[in-house]
């Protein structure tokens, strides 16, 4: 076990216990862990997005390594811009172009997403913030178009097919597989659940009784969701405890125990001082 791994374990223990300490009450340890998490996440995501997409797939397509020498006024100007960027940021724009498998000719169509991206960044300048609307409009329009077909195909047609259950050639009852009883439950649940969201008729009389059945189905579904949510949270807790237990061993110099002890003492002092301050 090298020093950096042990140090990493101590940091992980501190951050985990810092977050857990919120269960006692809001305190400086929680604040530190929360701010570190937000800051590191933002920095990490930005760096990943830049080095996996913007640099290789956008700049790599705009300025690929050219074949032979660059000729012609336009191309010399184009790669002149690249060299200018390269003199400022040589790690992003290495000498001679970016070689990420996008051929040897610039894909000028990618100027459009480049410009739209720059427009979105302009939202930080109040005078030119309206430019950002164009980028956002493109993104929203593209996403809406992309999703429309997929939702229609998978969620509407696919689910309609799934709800069209058979009552022929099946066993009467099965706990695990399709059966007549199970399919009747699916049919009743689907119809009554949908009717509950039909608001053009008041939910009274026989219609009200049917929609009430729909509510029961919805409640069972919410109950299952709650159960799954609890199960998920407990799994996450088990994960953290498993790590804390392994970091509490001699390999990591008893990191969990030392950090826990230190944190409890400091929290006690902090609480004592805060109460004294309030009293005075």
């Amino acid at each position: 076990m090298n020093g950096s791994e042990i140090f990493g374990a101590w940091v992980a223990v501190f951050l985990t216990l810092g977050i857990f300490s919120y269960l006692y009450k809001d305190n400086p340890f929680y604040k530190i862990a929360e701010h570190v998490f937000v800051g590191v996440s933002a920095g990490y995501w930005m760096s990943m997005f830049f080095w996996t997409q913007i640099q290789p797939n956008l700049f790599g397509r705009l300025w690929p390594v050219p074949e032979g020498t660059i000729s012609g006024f336009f191309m010399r100007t184009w790669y002149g811009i690249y060299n200018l960027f390269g003199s400022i940021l040589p790690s992003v724009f290495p000498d001679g172009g970016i070689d990420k498998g996008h051929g040897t000719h610039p894909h000028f169509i990618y100027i459009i997403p480049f410009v739209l991206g720059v427009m979105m960044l302009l939202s930080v300048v109040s005078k030119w913030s309206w430019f950002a609307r164009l980028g956002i409009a493109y993104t929203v329009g593209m996403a809406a178009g992309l999703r429309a077909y997929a939702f229609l195909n998978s969620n509407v047609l696919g689910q309609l097919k799934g709800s069209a259950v058979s009552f022929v050639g099946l066993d009467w009852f099965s706990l695990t597989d399709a059966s007549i009883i199970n399919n009747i439950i699916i049919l009743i649940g689907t119809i009554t659940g949908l009717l509950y969201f039909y608001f053009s008729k008041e939910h009274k009389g026989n219609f009200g009784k049917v929609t009430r059945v729909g509510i029961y189905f919805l409640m069972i579904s919410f109950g299952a969701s709650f159960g799954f949510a609890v199960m998920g949270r407990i799994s996450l807790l088990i994960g953290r405890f498993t790590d804390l237990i392994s970091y509490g061993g001699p390999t990591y110099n008893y990191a969990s125990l030392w950090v826990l002890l230190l944190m409890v003492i400091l929290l006690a002092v902090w609480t004592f001082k805060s109460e004294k301050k309030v009293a005075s």
Partner: protein
Amino acid sequence: MEKFLDFIVRAGSLDRRYIFVVIALVVMLPLFFPLNLPIRPTVSSQTIYNTVEKLESGDKALVSFEYGPSTKPEIHPMAVALLRHLFEKDVKVYITCLWPDGQFMAMEAIQQVAVNQYQKVYGEDYVLLGFRPGNEAVIKGLVSNFRKVYTVDSQGNFLDDIPMMNGINQVADFDYLFSASAGYPGTVEWVQYAADPTGVIMGTGTTSIQVNEVMPYVQSGQIKGILGGMPGAAEYEKLIGQAGIGTSGMDAQSVAHIVIVGFIIFGNISFFVERRRSKKY
């Protein structure tokens, strides 16, 4: 009786921090003293196992990692178990990531399974293509032209130089698709943009909280099987006969559930007793 009811009402307004301590204890104790409670695979876990069992040596599986450290305890054990099963069957594994942290989860799983356990060769038995931002647009791109989205893998190798990438041009070229997903983008997007349009058989492993959202796709046959949270991972570990983190966590999971159900019942009794008293007076 009245004293007992008094106790119930008083206990109902217990400081929630005592409950946190109890939960912490019931989760931690089984980790130190395992109970070895039985694990029985459900139909949905069995379906995934059966589907992978039907794959033959040399078949191609696309595995997508869409989770990060925050959901690692739920998804990572099942991702590891699935990789073990795939490598056991000599299936070629192609890994993509729609979440930036997914790449590091994939690296960890690969190191554990492909490198340490099965001594597989990078580029011949498995490849880590890495993360690409763009959510469903990435999936859509992979369905139409794989090489427009990925020209290089996560290590910067050109796809054309990787032997196992020969003949892989779109999602339809795969024999199996698995999404290890903790949210958006994840399972639902893979169904909508890849599995449904191409007809490639798809399985998924999700966080527990997603199971209700994904289950309709399983019921309709759009997804062939689902591993739900840590229990799903434990069931899969049981099926492949290799106990892992999922199995070791299940005792704590079961005991914690019993205690939580107890708290819920107790809380309800306290609520009803208090309500009856307030009506009475």
